[in-house]
């Protein structure tokens, strides 16, 4: 990303999170530059999901600071963080299971919809114009994610891979500046993974969405990310381009294990 003297979009400064005696994050600092794809890797329990929760306001670091576009969001509740343009998906798929796929993705635009519930319900004037405008964008997202055939299906009835796709659609429907993806390809087969990787790259290139990606599949991470950060036991042990990470001794030892070294 050129213009690197601009301040980063997101800055995480010396963040600590403890659950009882367990230090989930122990003084981690990182930054995300506008327009990049940053991947976070690390063994299970390294603190990757906790980092997502810290950025999205689900848990608040103590001590530590988080700045988004220069604004301090350290103690902001999640629904305010969402309003600033940070959308996310969850490791264990959190979708609205009782609602149709269409309504699920429509929920992603909740914050963009402003007209009062009366005009909206009566489907008049502003309400109608708004609904149509949002529906257009939502339909576009549905098209793009290739889930037209299931748009009226209750989301809870879908297979796991499709549920993950719906969740991704909901996050993208918010047109976020920063998208946090917590293992978007977990539990998927190779074809599904390729699809998701393509959607992530498209979102990044076509919509200019900045992406924070947690993923276990090394192949995917090395292929699509601009930068990689490695966490282990709540601490950052490496940071760099995919090529640098691949050859980092510490990473190979901690993450891949010595046996897999080629």
């Amino acid at each position, binding site marked *: 990303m050129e213009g690197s003297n601009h301040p980063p979009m997101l800055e995480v400064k010396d963040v600590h999170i403890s659950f009882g005696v367990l230090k989930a994050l122990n003084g981690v600092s990182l930054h995300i530059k506008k327009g990049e794809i940053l991947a976070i890797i690390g063994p299970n329990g390294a603190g990757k999901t906790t980092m997502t929760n810290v950025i999205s306001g689900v848990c608040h670091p103590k001590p530590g600071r988080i700045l988004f576009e220069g604004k301090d969001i350290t103690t902001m509740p999640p629904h305010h963080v969402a309003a600033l343009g940070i959308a996310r998906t969850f490791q264990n798929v959190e979708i609205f299971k009782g609602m149709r796929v269409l309504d699920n993705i429509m929920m992603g635009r909740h914050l963009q919809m402003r007209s009062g*519930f009366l005009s909206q*319900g009566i489907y008049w004037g502003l309400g109608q114009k708004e609904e149509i405008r949002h529906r257009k964008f939502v339909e576009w997202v549905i098209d793009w994610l290739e889930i037209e055939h299931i748009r009226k299906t209750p989301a809870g009835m879908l297979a796991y891979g499709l549920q993950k796709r719906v969740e991704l659609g*909901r996050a993208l429907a918010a047109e976020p500046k920063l998208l946090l993806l917590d293992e978007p390809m977990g539990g998927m087969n190779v074809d599904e993974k390729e699809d998701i990787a393509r959607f992530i790259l498209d979102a990044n290139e076509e919509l200019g969405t900045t992406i924070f990606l947690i993923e276990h599949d090394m192949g995917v991470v090395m292929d699509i990310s601009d930068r990689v950060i490695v966490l282990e036991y709540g601490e950052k042990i490496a940071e760099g381009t995919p090529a640098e990470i691949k050859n980092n001794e510490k990473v190979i030892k901690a993450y891949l294990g010595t046996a897999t070294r080629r």
Partner: protein
Amino acid sequence: MSFNWLFVLEVTITGLLVGLMYSLIALGFVLIYKASGIFNFAQGAMTLFAAFALVSLSAFLSLGFSLVGVLVIMVALAYVVERVMLRPLVARPALALFMATIGLGFFLEGVAQAIWGTQPRGLDIGITETSYDLGGILISKMDLFGAGLSGVLLFCLVWFFQKTRTGRALRAVSDDHEAALSVGIPLRSAWAITWAIAGLVALAAGILWGTRLGVQFSLTLIALKALPVLIIGGFDSVPGAIIGGLIVGSSESLAEVLLGPYVGGGIKDFSPYLLAVVFLWARPYGLFGREIIERV
């Protein structure tokens, strides 16, 4: 005794009309259950509280103004409940919230007793106890009014939940708290709105049952009738509350006239619970409730 079909039809219609009023009470439970996953034990006390408030306000205000007044009180109550009761219990087990609603129920009953005493009061909203004769079928004006009001309110609530941005947000909250927060829905205001709507339903139920039975403490027991409705229809389904209410209303009236004579009557009071037990055996999540499959 020859079988009188016209009479059976009349009983069925009356049962269905009363059933709509059961649906309305059940809906109060369903809304809270969907939004926060708890069975609101205080719904009966809220009904009583609203009815008492309406009686005392209408003593010196016109009916219209008293209704607005009670509505304001119920919305204020919802706000206080969210602030004082729900907020400190966020992320606690559902059982803690359930216990809190039992406490709220007792508290409201106590407050109602302290303010209004224990004497039953009459509530007159200008509907007389007359009946219409429709080709040999007698339909009570009160039943018709009650069913009409319930129907309108049910329609409005369903419309609100299905068609509006706020309603959609409330549905989302009921499905998944974390996801709702992540798309920018504030849980606290969602809960406050839900409780305000439950207060509105309590007010409507208070009016309907208060005019029929008088405003007295047994009104809290009306809420118990919602239990078989919910078991039959499903705890988390709005259409379930409506259909369940109609089933309970019509089946209890029919049981009374068809089976009652063989066992000496009084079936009406327990037949809905028997039906509920059958449903618990055959379909524990109700007709429209979401089937929860737990992996063990």
